[in-house]
């Protein structure tokens, strides 16, 4: 037999044998650190409580609220339509199923925003898309949406518009009577449209 053939045969066996020892590519690094850092510095990853309230009131079909608090906290109180994925269970199949729903805007909520933010970093690293953090969390939700504070007399008009919106939202979420003149609720429709220009203050 030709010596060339033996040489080529040996080479192919060695090379293909080498393939067996190539390490598997790990897929836990689905988003590399540089990209993750870039995503982290984008302020658009936060949604204000007003924005979330507006989305809930408008029954935004693309909104998916995920409550990352513990289950007993979740049972006590949560936002309408939220699903519970406790922070510790973010790597389970159940969490994967929920986080990988496509074409929805996933909003993470927790007591403050810090736990939701931590969950956000991990979820982002795992490669999930369209995830946001509700800035201020439920503590801020209470102080802005449920118990809005009337702005000072000297505040700009936008503050008052925001306050009006929050009063309406508060009524929506608690089913409470609005202490001001009735008809406020009808007006709410108008203020809601304008909401885009309103300064989203708060936490």
């Amino acid at each position: 037999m030709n010596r060339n053939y033996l040489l080529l045969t040996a080479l192919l066996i060695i090379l293909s044998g080498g393939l067996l020892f190539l390490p598997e590519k790990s897929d836990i690094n689905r988003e590399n650190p540089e990209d993750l850092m870039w995503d982290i510095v984008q302020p658009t990853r936060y949604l204000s409580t007003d924005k979330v309230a507006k989305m809930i009131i408008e029954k935004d079909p693309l909104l998916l609220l995920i409550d990352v608090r513990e289950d007993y906290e979740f049972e006590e109180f949560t936002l309408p339509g939220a699903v519970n994925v406790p922070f510790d269970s973010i790597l389970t199949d159940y969490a994967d199923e929920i986080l990988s729903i496509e074409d929805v805007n996933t909003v993470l909520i927790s007591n403050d925003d810090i736990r939701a933010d931590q969950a956000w970093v991990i979820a982002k690293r795992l490669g999930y898309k369209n995830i946001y953090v509700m800035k201020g969390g439920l503590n801020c939700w209470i102080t802005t949406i449920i118990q809005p504070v009337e702005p000072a007399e000297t505040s700009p008009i936008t503050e008052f518009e925001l306050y009006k919106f929050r009063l309406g939202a508060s009524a929506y979420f608690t089913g409470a009577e609005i202490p001001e003149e009735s008809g406020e609720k009808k007006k709410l429709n108008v203020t809601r449209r304008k909401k885009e220009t309103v300064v989203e203050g708060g936490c």
Partner: protein
Amino acid sequence: MHIHELNPKKTIIALSVFIVVIVIGLSSISGPRLEYKLSPAETIELITWEEGYVYPYELEDILGGVVDTVILIDIRNNFDFSRGHIPGAENISAIELLNEENISRLKKLKKEGMCVMIYGDSQLHANGPWMIYRQLGFNNVKLLLGGYDYYAQWKDNLADTYAEDGYLLGMPRHDYADVAANAGIFDEDDGDNKKPLNITRRKKTTVVEGGC
């Protein structure tokens, strides 16, 4: 049989080209510049590690020079930094944190046993960069609880923050269900709704552990 197949010269040429390509390729493998050292599961655990955080009252020791193994890094932008920052802090805005020079500097500091404390406006602001550093294996990077805003508020009496909890995040400050049920009454008395916080605080006596 074709003469090409038996031509030893051609075989050798083809063979060497083939081998050269593979060798070039193998030698040119440069793994990703930055690699996560922690798995996602370990990252979740990391959040609860006490030693990853710097409490505001511990700043006193750092600023007072009692602990001199800590370097302060301000991750806010230049403008905010110029308007005020913790004394001795240097300004590296968040997006530059993963630059080649900053990474190699961090590696050096880690080797020298120095700690790096990063802070932003709030704990939230610096949380992402801190988590990335930690996941990259820089376990000498710590995060200032409360951030600059809290510091600015208390900078004259940092020691007093030991008895304060304004910088602690993550626990409910209201009894949500209760508040939501009774929200019809706008009585503005948030104070009554405030839940007693269940805080596990570090003992004051412990100076910042320098062993990082």
